[in-house]
């Protein structure tokens, strides 16, 4: 019923946005990666001291295998457009695991994008300056970065055959 309502409204208000998201005009298809020419992968990384071939110790982002409370984890999400067409209105959503705390100003993207956050598990996204928490006394305050529980990157277009990455960092509680 909810999906039908969305379709009806989309038909009446073509091109308009509802709430903070662009609503689909047709039922979206969720596709397994193996079937799609567009692929998104996620990797967790941590900063570790490693030895270079010359024996020098340097800090390097490596796959997260030894994470303990207090450590910073960097998530890098890569989108590969293997289709023969440009893809548009690209929206990447990454829920933040409850054991992690988002690190302020760590979300970024390789190209141009709009970054927004959610504090309700991904139902509503907004820019940091527009994301509010309602307090018990009825007043509202700006949400703190540590309260974010989902990140969204919106990219206008990814050309055919190209890749791009988006990422953020979080601290393990």
């Amino acid at each position, binding site marked *: 019923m909810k999906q039908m309502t969305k379709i009806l409204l989309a038909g009446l208000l073509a091109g308009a946005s509802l709430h903070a998201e662009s609503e689909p005009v047709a039922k979206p298809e969720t596709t397994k990666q193996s079937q*799609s020419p567009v692929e998104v992968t996620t990797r967790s990384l941590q900063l570790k001291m490693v030895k270079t071939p010359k024996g020098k110790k340097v800090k390097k982002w490596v796959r997260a*295998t030894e994470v303990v409370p207090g450590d910073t984890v960097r*998530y890098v999400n890569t989108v590969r457009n293997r289709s023969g067409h440009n893809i548009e209105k690209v929206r990447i959503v990454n829920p933040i695991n409850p054991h992690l705390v988002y690190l302020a100003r760590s979300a970024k993207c390789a190209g141009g994008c709009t970054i927004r956050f959610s504090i309700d598990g991904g139902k509503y996204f907004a820019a940091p300056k527009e994301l509010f928490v309602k307090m018990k006394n009825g007043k509202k305050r700006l949400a703190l970065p540590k309260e974010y529980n989902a990140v969204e990157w919106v990219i206008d277009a990814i050309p055919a055959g190209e890749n791009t990455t988006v990422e953020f960092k979080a601290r393990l509680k």
Partner: protein
Amino acid sequence: MTGRSIITGRRKRDSTKRKVKCWIFVFSLLGLWSSAEGEGTAAGTAVSNSVTIRFQIAGSAATQTIQSNTDTFVVDRVADVRIDWMDTGPVEVGPGESDRVLRFLVSNLGNGDDNITLGYEHNSTDSFSPPPQNIRLYRDSDGDGVFDPSTDSQVSLLPLAEDANATVFIVADIPSNPDSNLSRDGIRVSSSWTATAGPEDPQAVDVVVRRGEDLAEGIYRLRDYHLESHKSATIHSSDGQVHTGTRITYTIGVTLKGGAGEVHNVIVSDTIPAGTEYLPGTLTLDGTALSDAADGDAGSYDSAQRLIRVDLGTLSQSAPGETSRNVAFEVKVQ
């Protein structure tokens, strides 16, 4: 004419008790044990991440949604032990005193249980000699912050859950002839976990040692103040000799000498010498008359026991010097 005066008193001790409880409360709040934002994620917890992408192929109105892979790592165990000395300052002790206590707080800041080893250490380079004797380590089993051998347990191993802490005491006897005024005595704590260096497997629970051991020292400091008493007799006789009927005034001086400090519950008591009788109404404190009855003032005379008693309360001084009180009474030679 002889008499025996008895001076009793209790030195300032453990008014640090309230301050210790306050410090424990403050330390807990401060999150020095890294628990200000909640407990650390337990070792072995799987932390997963996956991403959703929505897009439209150029020229098509259809929105497609793709789910990413799920990336998972398992939280490793971190060993992190800490100990802090909890007394608010050096613990004042006297030569020969027994069961003197230093307080410590042991914390497990790791994300799993730890069976922590406790070891006593004496800093011989900066302490009096001979060192404190009969060293024992106790856990504050009833959690009241006060050492009590009837309720607290002697320990060498301290099992603590993640993010838990416990109070531990060093209990020692002070030597009777120390050669200086300070002794530094502490406890070294050691985690039961050692680091593992396995293959780089995000699913394996390795052990990371953040702080495998820690040491905290407490200080015993010898008191540099003490009580002295002195008794004198003034014979009221024209020839300076004692005859039947001669009055004698006895004066007992009690003096706090040395550095700043205080002694509580100081009581002077003296038996009327044989062969004399106490003259009623002659008991004074610093020249002020005291009643013989056991009433609201500081003094009394017990005729059955032939005993005068004066409660001086607390003798204290805030700077080095002497602070004296004088008790006097008269007798008549029989």
